[in-house]
């Protein structure tokens, strides 16, 4: 019985590992890192996690469907670039709207190619990533773009409530909304069924193609929104392709750490967000120690590697225990015990 309780506790810890790891890292760094536990730094930490947090929403959804979208980084950059590019003519609202529309179109193409043409999403989004990088460079001329108006940027970054500038509030709202949508609405629950068991989805009368297309559209739109908000809050967008790869890698790592498997049918947007917070916290804390970007990268790699190895171990254990019936074993033991008692 005692052993059972420990296993139960362990499972619970695993279920909330992103949150626990984030809290652990935050606590540790608050105690030891200089200038970490300050009002200002906590705000900047939340702000820094806003881009990856928003992108991770759509990315988690794609993982739940059992697919992969490698083009999110490129979408972030291209759609982010559209905002300062179009702002002089269309204003902020127009620019952001255009960025979202562009994101939706990209997602639609991805979704149609995966669902209707039947090409694997790995291939489609890999090709799309290369195409979008080309488009982005042609649009921006290979350099960064900026506008001189800082009104929206000031509003997005000035805390409305203590600790919480609008950018962070928007991120919270999106993560919460997406989580409610996935957990509580029939449409949202459908994603889990389609990703987990396509045959069951077919039996349940769910149109797999439509879910796939919708999933890719949502993923690209959230990526576009993340990019647009980043561009709006900076009033500029970098043309450096490193942002694309770094976003993709961080989000991918975060989704895995959050406990969403590549195989589909499982996952949680909130946990992905906590994992994004974890990675941002670790990077931020390393910065507080005065160490550079290289150590942040190293740390992120080690965290991801540890989680991947742990997942492998869990699967290995699962396969070992496959076919074993613990309750039957317990029955057997009891029987043996009573037998031995009887013989005595």
């Amino acid at each position: 019985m005692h052993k059972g309780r420990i296993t139960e506790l362990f499972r619970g810890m695993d279920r909330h590992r992103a949150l626990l790891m984030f809290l652990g890292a935050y606590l540790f760094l608050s105690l030891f890192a200089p200038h970490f536990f300050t009002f200002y730094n906590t705000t900047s930490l939340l702000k820094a996690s806003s881009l990856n947090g928003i992108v991770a929403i759509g990315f988690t959804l794609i993982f739940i469907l059992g697919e992969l979208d490698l083009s999110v980084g490129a979408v972030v950059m291209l759609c982010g670039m559209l905002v300062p590019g179009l702002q002089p003519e269309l204003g902020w609202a127009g620019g952001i709207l255009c960025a979202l529309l562009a994101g939706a179109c990209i997602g639609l193409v991805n979704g149609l190619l995966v669902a209707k043409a039947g090409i694997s999403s790995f291939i489609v989004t890999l090709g799309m990533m290369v195409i979008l990088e080309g488009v982005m460079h042609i649009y921006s001329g290979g350099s960064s773009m900026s506008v001189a108006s800082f009104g929206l940027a000031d509003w997005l970054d000035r805390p409305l409530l203590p600790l919480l500038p609008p950018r962070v509030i928007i991120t919270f709202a999106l993560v919460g909304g997406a989580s409610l949508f996935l957990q509580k609405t029939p449409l949202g629950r459908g994603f889990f069924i389609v990703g987990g068991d396509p045959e069951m989805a077919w039996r349940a009368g769910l149109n797999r193609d439509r879910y796939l297309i919708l999933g890719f559209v949502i993923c690209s739109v959230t990526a576009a929104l993340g990019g647009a908000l980043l561009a709006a809050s900076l009033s500029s967008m970098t043309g450096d392709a490193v942002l694309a790869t770094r976003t993709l890698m961080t989000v991918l790592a975060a989704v895995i750490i959050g406990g969403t498997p590549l195989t589909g049918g499982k996952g949680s947007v909130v946990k992905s967000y906590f994992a994004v917070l974890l990675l941002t916290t670790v990077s931020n804390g390393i910065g507080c120690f005065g160490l550079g970007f290289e150590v942040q990268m190293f740390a992120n790699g080690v965290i991801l590697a540890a989680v991947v190895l742990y997942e492998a171990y869990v699967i290995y254990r699962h396969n070992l225990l496959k076919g074993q019936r613990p309750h039957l074993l317990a029955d057997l033991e009891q029987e043996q015990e009573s037998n031995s008692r009887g013989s005595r």
Partner: protein
Amino acid sequence: MTKRWVHSWLRFILENGRIYLFVLLLVIMGSFVSSEFLTPANLVNLLKAVALLGIVAAGMAFVTYSGHLADLSVPSIIAFSGIMTVASLPLGLVPALVIGTLSGLVVGAMNGLAVGMLGANPILWTLAVSFFMEGFMRFTWSNDQIYPSTDPGTPGSAFVQLYRLDFGPVPLIVVVMLVLFIAAHFLMKHTRLGVETRLVGSSRPAAKASGINVKKVVFLDFLLAAFAASVTGIFLASMNKLGVFYLGDGYAFEGVTAVVLGGVTLEGGEGNMPGVFGGVLVIGLLTNILNYLGMGSFYQKIVTGSVFILVVWLHHCRPHAGGSSDA
């Protein structure tokens, strides 16, 4: 005897026909685009331009063939072996090359251990490795490039000449690529390892049940990919005359592109080396023709991406095959 030989060649062309049809198409297009296209000098240049990618693809194909999608740590292996070679040049040319190759193999062994022995997810694990290897290299060499000394007579000058060496009209790097492709073909189709890899790629449980040491096979496949990547890294460092952490950027995705274009399915257990070579040729020809057309590199990206999706679509499009067959 001759008849059988012709027969096997015909079969070979039919089986790998699809990608070579594209090669033929591109060659015809190229000869229309420019009169210089079909000259031996241009064709050798073309081969030289794709040689580095070809070597990477020849190794990566084993990972894909064994059903493990791709080795995304290839860029960091390339960079690491390049840096280590340049750093150990003071010991002499041959020791430097050996150290460079070995350090690439160390990373490969790490991948093989985690993915093969422990069963970690290949994409995620190799991604994590590329993360911390880049961090490690940035930290150790403080974000900087390192240069070999190129004074005449030093190992450094010989090392820099490595990429620029010609055997008659054919550059050394092209010879290396062709030799590696032939060796890889032999390894894949005519040795125990290749056949076992095929079975592991087709069905891991079946391979395990038939007594194949799956862990060892996967380990060796990742080691092969790392070996090819470290050879590329050495030549790339020799070409650029420097070693730096970002040297291999982009080679992972280009390598996957070549392998998949060549008809190795992401599912594993299907494909062959001549096909992969065809995939490499398609990439080379496409770039070459677009260069002749005077297209900027950003437009080239758009074309390459679209062609990639299109070719894979046509390649994997099988009538009456239920559902998507790859990945």
